């Protein structure tokens, strides 16, 4: 593979390392790496792979840039808000390295398109944000025989590994089934330290580059746990499960399935999967304005109430079982949280305790701020 003089100069710090050298840089240039998501993890992954000279970089993302992304999704800038993420990312990547090809897929990865997209790449790096996509990516990688570079983050903690290599475990060997909807909060609901996906994304980029260079020991067969709060890195051994339905000795999954059904929801970030009585912000406003005898119940945490609240009784969800006596089951109650996920669990709990006139504020206080009172901040 030929490199121009400009490329030789650009990659000089690689070329003078015997572990990379011209042959390794040529491998990088010939490599085709697919990034699932241009978010918190996908940003550093794509930025470093582009800078490293990975010749063909694919990016799949159906979303547009939102203000709340900018705290950690460093591939996008303030001026990119409302632009498609793949468009914003591609522009930035070309700015970093004009010698690479960026292929954008402005679409949601689904069971219908995943195999076709993944087939065109050598390595898949997963920066998705929900369980359904993670199982989809895993199964597609196993079926197509592509290494799956995994990481996930929550608050101060992250996990990373390399799945679906020859003889190595896959994501299903580690977690055969997803948690029930609502049991494990998403970053949108529970938060994430902005630099954490940076830390884990850089680990993913490192693993992808090692896979391309065929050098070093990858995280295949190991799960790396990162605790940013204590800055401790732990390494745990993983093995391929002979009983794994996808990569085991007698696999039962031979084609992609319905992953939203498998995970019980349409993606963890969007829904809590619970079916409880709801009320929309506009309807709640109408009831409050008409003087309806109604109790608002804020089930968020104290530090969230400091940001913004719309009044009402305040009992964090975790305290509800021991403080349920503070509520009157005869009252009409509307529970709210940030986006309606935790308050749905509160409504479910209260209904199981005999409360019949309790409803969930659909979309939470963020929807209230958007639709009823734009003077309030969203978070």
């Amino acid at each position, binding site marked *: 593979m030929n490199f121009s003089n400009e490329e030789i100069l650009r990659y000089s710090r690689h070329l003078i390392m015997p572990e990379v050298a011209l042959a390794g840089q040529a491998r990088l240039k010939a490599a085709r790496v697919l990034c699932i998501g241009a978010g918190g993890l996908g940003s550093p992954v794509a930025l470093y792979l582009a800078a490293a000279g990975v010749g063909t970089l694919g990016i799949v993302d159906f979303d547009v840039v939102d203000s709340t992304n900018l705290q950690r999704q460093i591939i996008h800038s303030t001026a990119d808000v409302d632009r498609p993420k793949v468009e914003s990312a591609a522009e930035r990547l070309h700015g970093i390295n004009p010698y690479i090809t960026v292929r954008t897929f402005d679409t949601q990865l689904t069971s219908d398109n995943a195999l076709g997209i993944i087939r065109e790449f050598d390595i898949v790096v997963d920066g998705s944000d929900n369980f359904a996509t993670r199982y989809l990516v895993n199964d597609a990688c196993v079926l197509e025989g592509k290494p799956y570079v995994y990481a*996930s983050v*929550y608050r101060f903690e992250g996990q990373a590994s390399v799945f679906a290599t020859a003889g190595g475990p896959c994501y299903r060997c*580690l*977690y055969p089934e*997803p948690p029930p909807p609502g049991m*494990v909060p998403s970053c949108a609901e529970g938060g994430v330290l902005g630099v954490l996906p940076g830390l884990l994304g850089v680990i993913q980029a490192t693993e992808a580059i090692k896979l391309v260079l065929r050098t070093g020991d990858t995280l295949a067969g190991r799960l790396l746990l990162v605790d940013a709060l204590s800055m401790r890195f732990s390494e*745990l051994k993983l093995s391929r499960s002979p009983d794994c339905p996808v990569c085991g000795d007698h696999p039962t999954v031979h084609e992609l399935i319905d992953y939203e059904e498998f995970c019980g929801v349409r993606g963890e970030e969007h829904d809590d999967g619970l079916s409880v009585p709801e009320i929309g912000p506009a309807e709640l406003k109408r009831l409050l304005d008409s003087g309806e005898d109604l109790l608002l119940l804020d089930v968020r945490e104290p530090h969230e109430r400091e940001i913004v609240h719309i009044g009402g009784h305040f009992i964090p969800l975790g305290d509800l079982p021991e403080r349920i006596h503070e509520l009157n089951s005869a009252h009409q109650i509307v529970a709210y949280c940030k986006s309606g996920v935790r308050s749905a669990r509160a409504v479910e709990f209260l209904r199981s305790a005999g409360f019949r006139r309790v409803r969930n504020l659909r979309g939470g206080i963020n929807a209230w701020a958007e639709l009823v009172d734009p003077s309030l901040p969203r978070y």
Partner: protein
Amino acid sequence: MIRIRVQLPAHLRTLAHVAGEITVQIDGTVTQRSVLDALEVNYPTLRGTIRDHITHRRRAFVRFFACGEDLSLESPDTPLPEPVATGREPFLVVGAIAGG
């Protein structure tokens, strides 16, 4: 009584209203079952999150590790490694997260 160190994933620490590593007191042989039983007695909100409410079997989206080894497929009554049983190493409960 032996003091066993346990590390929980972030969302379970929130649920149990604890920060950082926790300890549980065990009387007798230190096994997965005795540690988890003690954990659920001390922190009732964790019931059903690590093990199934009824069967007490480990949930499929949770794994147990100690001393770098995956103990998830061991019998719940197998004694835990000596460094865990003497409190030198923690018993790790690791759970699936999906944030990106």
